[in-house]
């Protein structure tokens, strides 16, 4: 009885912890197995602790090349999608033009389309245009599917912006360019940053569309998929863990900066 009461009182906390564990367990497994020293080619059973893979992350041929390609594509896709998406978001919120409603809905279509269908259709398109599959076709595809997400993120921010702020800037001798640079952009920045990060993550991660349109080029997700057929090198876990750690560090740093600002203000 006492145990049931204890359970009732702490139900929310327990449920929260279990959900968190559910979320993080795969990450823990990735990290733990990056220190494994597997027998044979598959890294699916724990053998013994080793830091071999960490000391030689590029030890598997092709891995670091694919990683660097993926990072490059993700960066360019982020840049392209952010610039285009931000402009679309501003246009949709700020201007009344014909077919604005239609554009507003059409922009979300790529999000609704099954990815594998999109991938196949893109391939058809590229082949019909006679495009050479590789870096550029991957990049074009990535910018395309990241665009919708950037538009959503930036649009939400721009919509909540008081248009009087820009009028105030103009009233205070800022021309159109200065107004954009000094007022519009800084205020929209959190939305743009969120869109950019999302685009980076989506692009870096993408397998299906990339796989269809890459030709003989190999990105990091494709490399992992390919090697999984023949055996999984521990280095994959090392890269995964490193990405995870970098992301967590970034979050911690931004939180620390935010906290310090808050304390300075009060």
């Amino acid at each position, binding site marked *: 009885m006492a145990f049931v009461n204890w359970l009732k009182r702490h139900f929310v906390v327990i449920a929260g912890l279990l959900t968190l564990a559910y979320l993080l367990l795969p990450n823990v497994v990735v990290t733990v197995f990056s220190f494994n020293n597997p027998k044979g080619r598959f890294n699916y059973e724990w053998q013994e602790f080793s830091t071999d893979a960490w000391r030689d992350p590029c030890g598997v041929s092709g891995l670091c090349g694919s990683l660097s390609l993926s990072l490059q594509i993700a960066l360019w896709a982020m840049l392209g999608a952010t610039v285009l998406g931000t402009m679309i978001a501003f246009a949709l919120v700020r201007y009344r033009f014909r077919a604005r409603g239609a554009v507003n809905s059409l922009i979300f279509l790529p999000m609704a389309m099954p990815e594998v269908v999109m991938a196949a259709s893109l391939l058809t398109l590229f082949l019909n245009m006679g495009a050479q599959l590789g870096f550029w076709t991957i990049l074009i595809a990535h910018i395309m599917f990241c665009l919708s997400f950037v538009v959503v993120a930036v649009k939400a921010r721009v919509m909540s912006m008081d248009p009087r702020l820009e009028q*105030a800037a*103009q*009233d205070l001798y800022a*021309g159109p360019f200065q107004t954009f640079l000094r007022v519009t952009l800084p205020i929209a920045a959190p939305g743009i940053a969120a869109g950019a990060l999302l685009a980076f993550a989506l692009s870096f991660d993408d397998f299906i569309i990339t796989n269809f349109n890459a030709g003989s080029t190999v990105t990091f997700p494709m490399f992992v998929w390919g090697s999984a057929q023949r055996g999984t090198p521990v280095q994959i876990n090392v890269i995964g863990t490193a990405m995870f750690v970098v992301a967590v560090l970034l979050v911690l740093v931004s939180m620390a900066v935010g906290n310090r600002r808050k304390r300075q203000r009060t």
Partner: protein
Amino acid sequence: MKTTNDTAAHGGDVRLTGITKKYGSFTAVHPLDLTVPQGSFFALLGASGCGKTTTLRMIAGLEEPTAGTVHLGDQDVTALPPYKRPVNTVFQSYALFPHLDIFENVAFGLRRRGIKSVKKQVEEMLELVQLGEQARKKPHQLSGGQQQRVAVARALINHPKVLLLDEPLGALDLKLRRQMQLELKRIQTEVGITFVHVTHDQEEAMTMADTVAVMNAGRVEQLGSPADLYENPRTTFVANFLGTSNFIEAEVDSTSGSEIVLKAGGGKLMLPEARNSAPARTGGKVLLGVRPEKISLTHADDAGDIPEGRNRITGRIADSSFIGVSTQYVIDSPVCPEFEVYVQNIDRDPRLTPGAEVVLHWNPEHTFGLDAAQDIDAGVETVEEEVA
């Protein structure tokens, strides 16, 4: 501030000539001619949607007039974009830049004009609005009253020829609003810049402004000093929008010298010709108006004590409410069903309770005459809407 005065002396007039604003088929501002003399505190007063803010925004350059011109002094600024006009605006709800601190908000205009050393000027301006301590805070950390003062400082630091204020006190609570009214008036006197102030609050307009233009449905109904507008309203809208007025529908009986004699409900009432803005043909209709506080109330038993020469009507007290400094009575009279009377609580007559028969009397000098062709209740509803 000295230099400001000198430059402003040559070009602080705001001259609107035939200025018009149409949105499609809706006319927000009908062709309007208006001159705001340099150095004055000018108020555009009216209910929401009357075109006052549109007029202000056309002066700022944030709205393009459909027709007409805007002059600042001798300069035609109609075609200039807002960032090239020597006017600054205090926006409704302030529009402070949330990502900049108070210092940078105030320095914004100076920096955009390429002025490098802004520190001294910004600090002086923050002193003027008593915010020296808050320079490094962000706008959201300040109270409403402080934000309002930042908005004023941010505009004034540029020494504009004209400062435009768009309902600057609307977001503040009543007590703070009173305080800021005096504060703004003090600042205006100190810097000597022309202020054009848009408000729907008649008390605010009367407290602060030298000249008030009452706007209604895109037109200026009447323009004058607060006392002039209050004492001599020329339309029912102005009479009702500024304070409260009682109206009696009367018929012109005769004209004797400078007095018009009116007939209403069997009695005769006098109206000075100078205070009549209606056509006064014998037998024609005139709306006779009188303010509630100009009226004296005497119990019917003492009617004999009322001096000669005063306008008088009879009635019965329908309702009375004691509000401290005065008592407000609603009188049911044959000439007007709901006559309002405010009596100062100096010597209260205990017989003046609901149901009592009374005589209302006032000095004929306090009567005004309006054209009977207009709606008696114009301006009444709008005031109530704003309150709600």
